[in-house]
């Protein structure tokens, strides 16, 4: 917490320097702009603003008379009613988890594009243990974690021992995982909805019927928000994010994983076991995605449908991680933000298609990739202002003479 406090204090100080200062110390301006924390936050906020403006522009082109209403829906639906806000939090729990999975892998030099496979396997382990074995919710989440970890370990193993790029293994095991889960679901009659009196043969059972103890508890929050969507899932996700922050930044273990990502040879030279680190990074990343699957499917609302499509939720982890700068604390914010505008996007239908939100998110990510450009432009602007000031001063002096 101190770290966060410090960050905000620092941030305020820097802002002061820029806007209130101080002709005597122009170098401070450049110092504050070149500091990574400040410019990355400014860049993130700027890219969000540009993304939203782009979305508004698109709405204007598609339907000028309703564009204002559309933008308003995107921006305020999430806080317009308690139950909408509950939905934002409900969606953000799995988003934060898959974002953490991708972000953790990024931090350790790996690109885990397989979060969707790990998420699917995690969901299956959670549902299987909950429905077939009657596990309570916390044990089912642990099972989800184990499933995700197992599926994450495979790309790590292939990379460490066979030198296969983790991107290709993850892509392959996304599909293998999804097909395998479908196959296993079909051959476990007990997990399917119609065993429990439902009438749908290609969907997992309703948890409220099959095993109510496996539903993540609500602790009265559902009454507070007046919404069935509300449960403690998002708090679990935030707690895990904080744990990941500590592990990555404050422990030797986290340092070793990051070191292997930066430079495998250097870390081997320094006496670290690179193979172990790669596999462990992928195991942890997979476990995080698996927990995400557990948190989503143990709410008792969503059921797993047997389809031949990869789940989109896992892929959404990539933008969440990128927007959060792969920092676990940033991922909490970006996960909630993306869930927020997605809930806003659903309110756009049927006037506009909700994919406009995806376009906005894509523009935000593209702009955040351009953070260097944003930074340079900012610096140029400030330098120009400085020049103008100096010119003004000179003119004033000459006028005095």
């Amino acid at each position, binding site marked *: 917490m101190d770290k966060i406090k410090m960050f905000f204090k620092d941030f305020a100080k820097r802002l002061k320097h820029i806007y209130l200062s101080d002709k005597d110390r122009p170098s401070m301006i450049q110092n504050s702009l070149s500091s990574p924390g400040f410019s990355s936050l400014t860049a993130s906020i700027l890219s969000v603003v540009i993304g939203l403006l782009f979305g508004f522009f*698109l709405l204007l082109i*598609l339907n000028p008379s309703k564009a204002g209403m559309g933008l308003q829906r995107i921006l305020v639906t999430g806080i317009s009613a308690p139950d909408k806000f509950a939905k934002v939090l409900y969606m953000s729990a799995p988003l934060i988890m898959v974002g953490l999975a991708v972000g953790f892998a990024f931090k350790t030099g790996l*690109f885990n*594009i397989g979060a969707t496979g790990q998420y699917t396997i995690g969901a299956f382990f959670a549902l299987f243990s909950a429905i077939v074995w009657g596990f309570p919710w916390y044990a089912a989440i642990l099972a989800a974690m184990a499933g995700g970890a197992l599926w994450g370990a495979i790309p790590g193993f*292939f990379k460490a021992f*066979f*030198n*296969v*790029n983790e*991107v*290709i*293994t993850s*892509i*392959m*095991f996304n*599909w*293998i995982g999804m*097909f*395998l889960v*479908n*196959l296993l679901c*079909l*051959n476990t009659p007990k997990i399917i909805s119609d065993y429990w009196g439902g009438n749908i043969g290609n969907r997992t059972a309703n948890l409220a019927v099959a095993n109510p103890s496996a539903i993540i508890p609500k602790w009265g929050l559902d009454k507070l928000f007046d919404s069935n969507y509300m449960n403690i899932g998002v708090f679990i996700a935030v707690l895990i994010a904080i744990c990941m922050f500590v592990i990555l930044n404050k422990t030797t273990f986290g340092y070793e994983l990051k070191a292997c990502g930066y430079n495998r040879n250097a870390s081997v030279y320094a006496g670290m076991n690179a193979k172990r680190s790669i596999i462990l990074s992928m195991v942890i990343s997979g476990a995080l995605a698996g927990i995400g699957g557990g948190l989503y499917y143990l709410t008792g609302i969503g059921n797993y449908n047997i389809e*031949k499509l*990869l789940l989109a939720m896992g892929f959404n982890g*990539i*933008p969440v991680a*990128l927007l959060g700068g792969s920092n676990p604390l940033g991922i909490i914010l970006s996960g909630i933000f993306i869930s927020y505008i997605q809930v806003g996007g659903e309110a756009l239908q*049927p006037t*506009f*298609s909700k*994919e*406009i*939100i*995806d*376009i906005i*998110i*894509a*523009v935000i*990510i*593209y702009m*955040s*990739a*351009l*953070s*260097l*450009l944003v930074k340079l432009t900012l610096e140029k602007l400030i330098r120009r202002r400085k020049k103008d000031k100096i010119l003004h001063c000179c003119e004033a002096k000459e006028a005095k003479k």
Partner: protein
Amino acid sequence: MNIFADVLGLTILFAVPLILVAMGGMCSERSGIVNIALEGIMVIGALISCIFLSMVNASGWGIAHPQSAVMLAILISAASGTIYAMFLAFASVNLKADQTIGGTALNMLAPAFAIVLSWALQGQGQTTIFIPNWVRITPQQFGVPADEALNFFERMFINKFFLTTPVAILLFAIITIVLYKTKFGLRLRACGEHPQAADSVGVSVYGMRYAGVALSGMLAGVGGLAFTLAVGGGFQSSVAGYGFLALAVMIFGNWKPLRIFGAAFLFAVFKVIAPMASSIPFLPTFSGIKGGEYLYLMLPYLVTMIVLAFTSKKSRAPKAEGIPYDKGSR
């Protein structure tokens, strides 16, 4: 024997987009830019060219000149893919942005844009752009009489034939020759291995990287159209992960054209077996378990992994890929 001809024919049909897109990925990576946006570029190429096809169909010009319309559609898909890829080039060459991030953004943008555009053009909820029937070249147009049964080779090559197949083979040959037998190709590859060295002898690294990404955009755009034609049933704002599969085929093919060619066929043949398994006599049907087709659906991915585990000890990516070129760095 007919069933084998069908399997082989479908294999060719599905290998074509894989080859095109994987070659595209290779062009870009050989110049030093990781192009993870292949999926998005495919979607854009398919989207724009399918819109074009349905427009010329509506105007009646298409049915009068079917194959010139398809040829134009191919050119349009190439152009739109190239333009879309320029966003990646601009971000990763000029602005030295992280290439994975830029690519992910483009991957996300493309299908969303496709859905929004097809809604805008065709009305609410209308996300499928139908492709007219005349794009296919029927055996009759090859001069096979309508009442005659096709022989083995006819069944394999011309039963389901689109103009994209010969264009793809031509493009494959041209790209391979350009990359390995011309000055341009050597320079492009040098920029992916050691850009500083290339720069020191006067090669424009930025220019070469732009060219690499442009080529990949062109090939992936055509690949998107080829995939949509192969699947049939119209364009539905997605290419079902084929861009990522092409990425896998490229790595599997070790960034080399001929190996990519082989890898694409290996992958495609196992991919085609899944829907055909029940009609191939000697394959087990797994009647004891439900959903036995999933075992076949898993097959191409499993086979790829097994082959990779044995072959990729020697695999070597272009050395400078993914690293933005900075003139000042050592």
